[in-house]
């Protein structure tokens, strides 16, 4: 289990390679990369500022990650989340999960993203034609998270 919060970009391929190098027990490595879109939540955007709550962000991601490990037989995991100024095309978040068989890794990666979006303390402010505008939370994200509480992992 590992969590990193950083301003710098990340290299998803290099992270997966580092996590799986030398291991012979891992049969599945699933990764999700979230990217900054020009077609933002508030309109067409030129950039976004990602604010976070230092300390709590790391701790909350570790809590979510521990929950995923409790629900699925994972052999490893990594969450990388960026903060600061990002422009369309930039990677924002990386989730990698490792397991012996693919289903656990797929489901756990999905779970991690659903929980991360609604409980990790990050906030996006998008630069659009009106200036800076805070992104509003979406009910569909709460719905995506809540489906995990009615379904056993």
């Amino acid at each position: 289990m590992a969590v990193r919060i950083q301003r710098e970009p990340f290299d998803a391929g290099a992270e997966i390679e580092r996590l799986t190098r030398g291991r012979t027990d891992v049969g599945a490595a699933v990764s999700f990369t979230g990217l900054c879109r020009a077609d933002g939540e508030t309109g067409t955007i030129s950039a976004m500022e990602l604010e976070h709550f230092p300390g709590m962000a790391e701790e909350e991601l570790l809590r979510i990650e521990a929950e995923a490990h409790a629900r699925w037989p994972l052999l490893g995991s990594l969450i990388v989340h960026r903060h600061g100024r990002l422009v369309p095309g930039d990677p924002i978040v990386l989730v990698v999960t490792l397991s012996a068989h693919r289903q656990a890794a797929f489901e756990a990666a999905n779970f991690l993203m659903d929980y991360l979006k609604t409980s990790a303390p990050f906030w996006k402010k998008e630069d659009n034609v009106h200036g800076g505008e805070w992104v509003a939370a979406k009910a569909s994200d709460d719905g995506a998270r809540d489906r995990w509480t009615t379904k056993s992992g």
Partner: protein
Amino acid sequence: MKIRYFAWVRERVGRGEEEIALPETVKTVADVVAFLKTQGAEYETAFENEKIVRAALDRVHVKSDTPLANAGEIAFFPPMTGG
């Protein structure tokens, strides 16, 4: 008690954190909000729709009826939009 604000709650209050001596009658997260709303227009604006604003005690999410107990820090922020 140390009070921290993030995102638009921070912008409306006008600062990221402050130390406030809370009266003894302030026992829960909701009590803190009610007290802050008596302290100036910036707090009234930040908490005008107080059901939307989330809180964390010592960096753990809590509901508004949670007792402060011995927490050293409380944070207020909008619903999260990371990922």
